[in-house]
């Protein structure tokens, strides 16, 4: 059995479906892999630690990866887990904000992921405003509470599969504005990165194969896979997760190993246009589609 260490971006949640199912259903073992999964609480740490060689793989985000690579981190995207954006701008359903234009002069809570202000700026520009028309407030991980309690009028960084359900459950349903419908190019929300230069590691391909098998298992057996998911840890079994699970299934990448070069190139250009990165490095230096073995 070959050992691999995988750093998640955050605690285990339905977004990590294929990874957990691959472990629970023995698809990793089938590939001869023994994958150790570590849950951090600071999503910005895993890429650093992978770059520093502290772990083999990390769960990260496509936008952040562009930025990190531009900042000099030796990272290589090798797989995709969630192939659509999850990020949304959320307001209270019965609140004053009906359209994005209503945000002028309001407070917008943000969980600083390094990218949310760009998203928001793009969305605002589409409605003839820019970032200086709102007040950005860092609310860290208290996105829904800060919105529900009225401390902010909107939050950016809320996940459509998660925060929306969460708010609904506590009786304060939210309304989402989808980023890709407001001027942001489509991107992969959750990806797997390795340290650049290690992509030749044959275990990575095996890892992707296991993910692929797990994803198709999830699509085919949504209920069994939910049971398998919660069997990892009984505290995952609650209403929020079960609703999130249902909402996430259609967003899992069916071909995790595949790389949509056009999507990555376009997104890099978008980031350069917004000024977040200065240069657009050669795509092959930070994203690959690993060949079959």
């Amino acid at each position, binding site marked *: 059995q070959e050992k691999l260490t995988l750093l998640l971006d955050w605690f285990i949640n339905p977004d990590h479906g294929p990874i957990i199912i691959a472990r629970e259903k023995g698809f990793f073992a089938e590939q001869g892999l023994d994958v150790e*999964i*570590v*849950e951090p609480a*600071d999503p910005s*740490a895993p890429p650093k630690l992978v770059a520093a060689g502290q772990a083999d793989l990390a769960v990260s985000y496509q936008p952040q990866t562009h930025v990190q690579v531009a900042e000099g981190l030796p990272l290589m995207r090798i797989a995709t887990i969630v192939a659509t954006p999850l990020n949304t701008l959320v307001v209270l359903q019965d609140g004053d904000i009906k359209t994005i234009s209503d945000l002028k002069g309001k407070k917008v809570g943000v969980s600083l992921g390094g990218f949310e202000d760009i998203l928001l700026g793009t969305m605002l520009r589409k409605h003839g405003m820019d970032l200086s028309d709102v007040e950005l407030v860092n609310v860290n991980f208290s996105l*829904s509470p800060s919105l529900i309690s009225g401390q902010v009028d909107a939050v950016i960084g809320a996940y459509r599969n998660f925060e929306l359900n*969460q708010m609904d459950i*506590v009786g304060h349903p939210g309304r989402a504005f989808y980023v890709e419908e407001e001027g942001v190019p489509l991107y992969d929300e959750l990806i797997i990165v390795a340290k650049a230069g290690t992509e030749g590691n044959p275990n990575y391909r095996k890892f992707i194969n296991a993910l692929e098998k797990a994803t198709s298992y999830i699509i085919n057996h949504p209920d069994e896979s939910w049971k398998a998911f919660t069997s990892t840890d009984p*505290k995952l079994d609650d209403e929020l*997760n079960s609703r999130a699970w249902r909402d996430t299934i259609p967003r899992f990448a069916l071909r995790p190993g595949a790389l949509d070069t056009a999507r990555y190139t376009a997104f890099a250009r978008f980031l350069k246009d917004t000024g977040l990165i200065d240069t657009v490095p050669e795509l092959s230096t930070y994203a690959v589609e690993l060949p079959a073995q």
Partner: protein
Amino acid sequence: MRAIRLCITFAGLLVLWQLIVTATAAPTYILPAPLDVAIAMAERPGLLLQHAWVTFAEILLGLLFGTILGIVSALVIALFRPAKRWLLPVLVISQALPVFALAPLLVLWLGYGMPSKVAMAVLIIYFPVTAAFYDGLRRTEGGWLDLARTMGATRGAMLRHIRIPAALPAFGSGLRVGAAIAPIGAVVGEWVGSSAGLGYLMLHANARMQVDFMFAALALLASFGLALYFTVDFGLRRLTYWQREQSPFDD
């Protein structure tokens, strides 16, 4: 008698808590009522305890190493003048830096296991202990030192038989603070990266808005913190047996 008083205190705290909930009309996802928390606790006691052990172990190890390190540092600073000049600023800086900023460094060096959490607890406990003990060491009564000098005391013996005992009450002050904040160290460490412990449980629950469960973990942590504080306090009173406490308004 003491047990009764403790129970009353505990009940009083619960009532206070309930009052705050009622008074502020806080929704459950902001501040759950004590009963909700008790239910959450009763629902998954095994899970809580299992994670609690991890955290308790981290706290105790952190307190142990932090205290040892603090004692050694204070001695070095008090004994060697150059050390004071160079070490003290480092010490203060180490304290003013938010541990969180150092967390990736610690994880990089120590990995995701228990060592990095213990290191975090050590970092937090270290300064109060060092600062207080050092303060005690530098305030030794001059007459005793003079006496020791005329007796031809060796540096080590003077330290052992005069300066350290004389500094014990001050050290005690510092250690009490250290014991009270040790839980923070371990929990912050767990937030940086872990897969077990009450801190992990809390963040996890918090991210899910299972605020009642988060408070259950918090309550467990607070109880342990309280027990630790009073144990340390008891030990310190033993250690400074000659100190008479003044409660001049008892009567």
